[in-house]
């Protein structure tokens, strides 16, 4: 069972929930930028939530299905189509052998996840299947996907078999068919319009000038084109320290917002280095990292301060919702009439 890459598009790489436990050796975590979308994509096709999937960036990716497969597409809406017909997201989709799935244009968000039922047959390197692009390890031969690559998938999980057979029988002459039920992405993909990015104060927040502290929360920042999976560089008011100081390098985390000498903040993301030495003005709340992951260069961003306790409660609430979602998806897959 395999998928062939016809065109990789801007960037497509294999990502799971990341490579933990090796930061003390300088090995970065990598993993999906939008972990919520990755988890849901996997749950929809009966996989463990942390299975590896294809992370598609912005546009241009094109995949040929060499076998009948059950997949799901979540995350940003990058206009996935098969033979000109839109493929619905956030639900299981049965795709017939010979079909070509193309990501046409970026309607909302910037990253989509394509999970396949059974998961992709990719070896683990240091407990993870994520691609560490700069280190050249993990994922598909340690690199981004290229034209001609063939991705093999594992066997279907038992629990998805009846849904698979059911969809197959309904598909008839069509190239694909999706279930009518789906996960409402509204709960998991807020856009920048409806919510500002919530942050907690960073370790060096107090060492910025009064005016920089208030500008950080009162003004817009724009994501510059020099942004990637490692971090988003932002432009806006220049943030200044009360007086400059040398900081010793220490560990940074996903969502740390550090400010180099030029005064333009950088949000550290999935491919961040393990350690950094720039003053940290704030940290993005974990629940809002998937929102950041879907932003594009040119878009504006606004920060809102919350307390650590608020960030923790939001996180625990989100995990509870994910748990409920897991149960209801399983119920739909196993018990309900699939269509």
């Amino acid at each position, binding site marked *: 069972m395999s998928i062939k890459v016809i065109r990789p598009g801007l960037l497509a790489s294999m990502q799971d929930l990341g490579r933990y436990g090796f930061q003390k050796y300088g090995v970065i975590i990598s993993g999906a930028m939008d972990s919520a979308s990755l988890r849901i994509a996997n749950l929809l096709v009966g996989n463990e939530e942390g299975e590896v999937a294809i992370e598609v960036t912005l546009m241009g990716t094109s995949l040929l299905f060499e076998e009948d497969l059950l997949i799901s597409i979540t995350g940003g809406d990058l206009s996935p189509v098969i033979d000109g017909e839109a493929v619905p997201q956030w639900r299981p989709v049965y795709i017939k052998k010979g079909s070509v799935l193309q990501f046409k244009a970026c309607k909302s968000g910037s990253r989509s996840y394509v999970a396949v039922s059974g998961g992709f047959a990719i070896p683990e390197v240091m407990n993870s299947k994520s691609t560490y692009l700069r280190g050249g390890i993990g994922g598909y031969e340690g690199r981004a996907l290229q034209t001609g690559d063939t991705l093999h998938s594992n066997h279907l999980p038992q629990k998805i078999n009846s849904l698979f057979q059911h969809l197959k029988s309904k598909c008839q002459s069509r190239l694909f068919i999706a279930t009518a039920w789906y996960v409402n992405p509204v709960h998991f993909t807020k856009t920048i319009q409806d919510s500002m990015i919530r942050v*907690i104060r960073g370790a060096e927040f107090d060492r910025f000038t009064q005016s920089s502290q208030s500008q950080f929360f009162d003004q817009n920042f724009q994501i510059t084109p020099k942004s990637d999976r490692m971090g988003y560089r932002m432009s806006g008011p220049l943030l200044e320290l009360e007086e400059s100081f040398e900081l010793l390098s220490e560990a940074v985390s996903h969502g740390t917002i550090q400010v180099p000498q030029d005064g333009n903040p950088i949000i550290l993301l999935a491919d961040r280095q393990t350690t950094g030495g720039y003053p940290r003005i704030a940290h993005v709340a974990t629940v809002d990292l998937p929102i950041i992951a879907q932003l594009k260069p040119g878009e504006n961003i606004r920060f809102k301060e919350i307390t650590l306790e608020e960030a923790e409660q939001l*996180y625990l609430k989100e995990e509870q919702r994910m748990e409920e979602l897991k149960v209801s998806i399983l119920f739909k897959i196993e018990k309900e009439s699939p269509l």
Partner: protein
Amino acid sequence: MLQTIFDGKTNIEMKPIGDSSICVQFGTEINPEIHRKVKGLVDHLDKKSFQGFIECVPAFTSVTVFYHPLLVHHSYKKDVNPVEKNISPYKIVCAILKEILMNLEEMKEAKQRIVEIPVCYGGEFGPDLEAVAEYHHLSTSEVVDIHSKGEYLVYMIGFAPGFPYLGGMSEEIATPRRHSPRLSIPEGTVGIAGMQTGVYPISTPGGWQLIGRTPLELFCPNENPPTLLQSGDIVKFVPISLEEYQAYKEKTI
């Protein structure tokens, strides 16, 4: 949010780094004594972690502890609904770390691993060796002597997989970075920047003064641990000839 504890000798600070990691700060100076405390906590956590612990990352004067807030919460009380009861995973981990720190045994003079790194100095492998020598009015062999005489403590690994932050380089050869950085420095290159020295484990851009190259691999993704060096090791550089370098590369030694 900042918590300070006194372990009987010094103040140790704990502060949140986002909502799922805590930085434990043992001081502000780079020295072997603080390094021993850093190593003590890391060794303890690697041997005996707590529920929800993910990993810890040692740095010059601190250890950052990464945890899974949900699992930490569960460890506290499984039957309590996290949303109804306002329980902070940060505070739970702080309490756990406090307990560990108060009872952390004084690090005995632990046996330190000594790792010898063969280096072919100068020539095409060390294009800046002469510049470093000129800067200090030394001969190139004096620079090599001073560099390979030293014993270097690996304070931390960061920047790239297996990249060591070494302490203990002689001021006699400390040299500022190059005016314009090179676009690509080959893996294994040994360089100097100010008071620092180190080896690039993977090819990267950089502005260090390049004085030699080692045939050893510092990053070996299929081995466990995946890096030649670890925090706490002692590094010694051993000069080798070009022929020896090639023999190493061909694994005839």
